[in-house]
């Protein structure tokens, strides 16, 4: 199986995703430069984390205009699995593949930490090896991960089982104390209506090896292997 990893100017988790796909999972990984339009033969597409275009204007706002994004949208419309991690999630929001927007973290600071999470919603190509209700920990590292959408959208997302990851506290409760960035309804990850496009602020690629103290994230990549 081949994962195509889009490289925007300013992407900085591209190598990390590549490493996990290729060296941890033993599958094929390929970098795709943002000016390219070639996703032919990709089985899954990953928009990695980082600071595409320096986060200038607004996170993800410039990257969505890169030539490759038209192909990503087309790939997603055909039902291809697309994972946006951190800045990749922000780009998916800007590109309209997922609803809502990100604003500055409630505490106004960049937060790099382990975040307790609860798997939620329906199975997706990136979460189906986990079970709804399962509590996991994944690293987060962002300054603009405060998810926001209007109430109707939030209700719809929850009603359709599209909130796939939620921040919880150490005791596993969906509480304000367990919300590291102020996201509405503690949303950490979402999928689109069809379920094939997933955006998440936490970094599964940083938690895919026991050496790094946590390998639960590996299951998210393995989910895509079917």
């Amino acid at each position, binding site marked *: 199986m081949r994962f195509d990893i889009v490289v925007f*100017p*300013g992407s*900085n*988790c591209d*190598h*990390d995703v590549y*490493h*996990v796909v290729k060296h941890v999972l033993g599958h094929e990984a390929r970098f795709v430069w943002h000016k390219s339009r070639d996703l032919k033969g990709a089985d899954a597409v990953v928009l990695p*984390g*980082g*600071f595409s*275009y*320096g*986060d*200038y204007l607004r996170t993800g706002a410039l990257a969505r205009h890169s030539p490759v994004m038209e192909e990503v949208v087309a790939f997603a419309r055909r039902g291809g699995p697309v994972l946006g991690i951190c800045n990749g999630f922000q780009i998916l929001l800007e590109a309209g593949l997922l609803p809502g927007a990100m604003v500055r973290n409630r505490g106004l*600071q*960049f*937060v*790099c*930490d382990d975040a307790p999470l609860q798997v939620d919603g329906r199975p997706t190509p990136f979460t189906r090896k986990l079970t709804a209700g399962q509590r996991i920990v994944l*690293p987060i*590292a962002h*300054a603009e991960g405060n998810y926001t959408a209007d109430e109707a959208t939030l209700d719809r997302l929850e009603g359709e089982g599209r909130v796939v990851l939620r921040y919880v506290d150490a005791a596993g409760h969906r509480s304000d104390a367990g919300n590291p960035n102020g996201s509405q309804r503690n949303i950490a990850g979402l999928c689109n209506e069809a379920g094939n496009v997933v955006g998440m602020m936490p*970094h599964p*690629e*940083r938690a*895919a*090896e026991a*050496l*790094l103290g946590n390998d639960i994230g590996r299951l998210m990549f393995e989910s895509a292997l079917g």
Partner: protein
Amino acid sequence: MSASVMPPVLEGEALLAQAKKAGLTEDELRRVEQLLGRTPNTLEIGLYGAMWSEHCSYKSSRHLLRRLPTTGPRVVVGPGENAGVVDIGDGLGVAFKMESHNHPSYLEPYQGAATGVGGILRDVFTMGARPIALMDALRFGRPDHPKTRKLVKGVVAGIAGYGNAIGVPVVGGDVAFDATYDGNILVNAFALGLVEIDKIFLGRAEGVGNPILYVGARTGRDGIRGATMASASFGQGSEELRPTVQVGDPFYEKLLLECCLELFKLDAVVGIQDMGAAGLISSSSEMASRSGAGVRLQVDKVPRREQGMTAEDCMLSESQERMLLVAAKGREQQVIDVCRKWDLDVAIIGEVTSTGRLDIYDGEEQVATLPALTLTDEAPRYDRPRRKPADLESKWVEIAPPPLADAGQALVEMMARPTVASKRWIYRQFDHMVRVGTVVRPGRGDAAVVRVPGTRKGVAMSVDASNRFCGLEPRRGARLALMACARNLACVGAEPLAVTDCLNFGDPTLPEVSWQLAECIDGLAEACNALGIPVVSGNVSLYNDTDGVSIDPTPMVAVVGLMDDVERTCDVAFKEAGDLVLLLGRQTGELGGSEFLAALGRKEGRPPALDDALELAVQKTVREAIRQGLLRSAHDCSEGGLGAALAESCLAGALGASITLEAPLAPSALLFSEEPSRVVVSCRPEQLAAVQALAAQHGAPVTSLGTVGGSRLELAGLASVELTKLRDAYEGAIPAIVGESA
């Protein structure tokens, strides 16, 4: 016809005034005239002023730095290049360096700290290395000083803003607070990169006729004469120097980084150097000096941000994110194509010549022509007068251990000392996990551990300095700091390889400061020799003084170590109830120069003695025990002594411990002495005999202290403290300084 761009040649008072403005003394001006055999024009004066600044020339320190050992079997590139490189086997090397950005960070904390990170990263990737780790060593003034809050917030945000965006993890650091830094904070940034030994690039202008390319951001008027500013003392009106601080753009640097690493694969690059302090003049003259060649520059071809900039503006600007690159003749278009791919500005601005001179043209006119070496190697050298401070030894008073009314409360208060307390508020704002290599994270281990991609190896690094010790006895203080770093490496299972240093001192024209500098360098040399490791790179920052008062001598040292199996490592956290707690090393209870005394407002006593044989025995025992998988935690006793070390191991593991301290010492000496060569370790009961045997084999004393378990730190006969109480103190201190809750 346009007006001539030829800079004028002045005479008399006007000439002297021009030289002074450029930072040259009258003697130095005369030296320039002698070297040139003529009077320099105003542009040339500006170039000498920048290149002969303390920051660029090391004129007060270079002869002292020769006392440091700089060679060894693993040294691939020693001091003098952009960064040092050490062989780690498998055809790989680590390139690393530490550098100060003290003056700009005090004037403009966000940009000063940010561009410090940018500069040190360029030093490393210029060598052809992919940066994989950053550390930051920070010193701030008193927590309640009116400026401290703003400085802490600004510096931390600046490092975060730059380091996070560029995607190099901040894996460690060292942060302390002391009144000595009230008017002169220290911001020292360390970067480490990985390089293939046979693909190292150097800052050399070689091959007559090879084109010289300018790559990166356009040149603006920011940071002009920044090197001169950084080589002067602060006084009234220093805030007005703010325009000399550069402004960074991490996005642009990220593009430059990736572009350079792509260029290096082409075989089209002959030499490359970052435009750091003193910008284009320093990069061009240093590249020419190192190779003995000459350089011809066409300054009007330099990409500029604004119109109306003079040749001097262009030569001295410290605009960030720029590189000077020598390409192989005929390959320049390939270089240009890669730069364009990354949307970077690029221009051919000159060529390598055989003249040994730096010839600068503005259009048709030759505006400067200088022998390259006169700007670099032939800069003045000052063996400044040195004098031991008259009151030094009067501070070495015998310290009678002060009584503790309540040892538990004293420990809680120690954990809340900002120098001892958790730095979580800081490192949580730094991406410390990007690049998926951070095996031991900040706050978890005595040293950071990063794996070497594609191998089983790990690289460990630690940074330390003690102004309290160095202020009281510079030589001993410097030795203690370097040994503490090596001990930190041992505590994660690594063998020390080499050192980079950042020597932060006051005004070197004061004989006492020059003496401190010489003594600290000697102390570092002694410790290096004891460990058998060299210094491969570094930086000197002088004139850290305000209104005539110099900071305590602060030689910051970072030691880099290697481990063959990165999985055989250890952190400070107690792991499981029932594990045994042991102390390796001796307890003599010296309190001189300790944080405990500082808390009482006493900066006195002689720093604790260092016994090299004991120190090495302890380090070997810990390292070997970790490699054999015998230990579950290891933590050295540093700031806050054994008491703080025990508390930190409890807090990191969220497990209490029952401890009995039997040494016949007063409680304050027992808990808070900062004598070296001590490590608190824990192991499973069944490993006790093996640990003891190993310690005996290496000659390290070992004492049983107790067992892990419960939710309190019990110190038999002394105290019993709830971990929650210790945690609140430990986690709350830094947030309190910046006005936030933990």
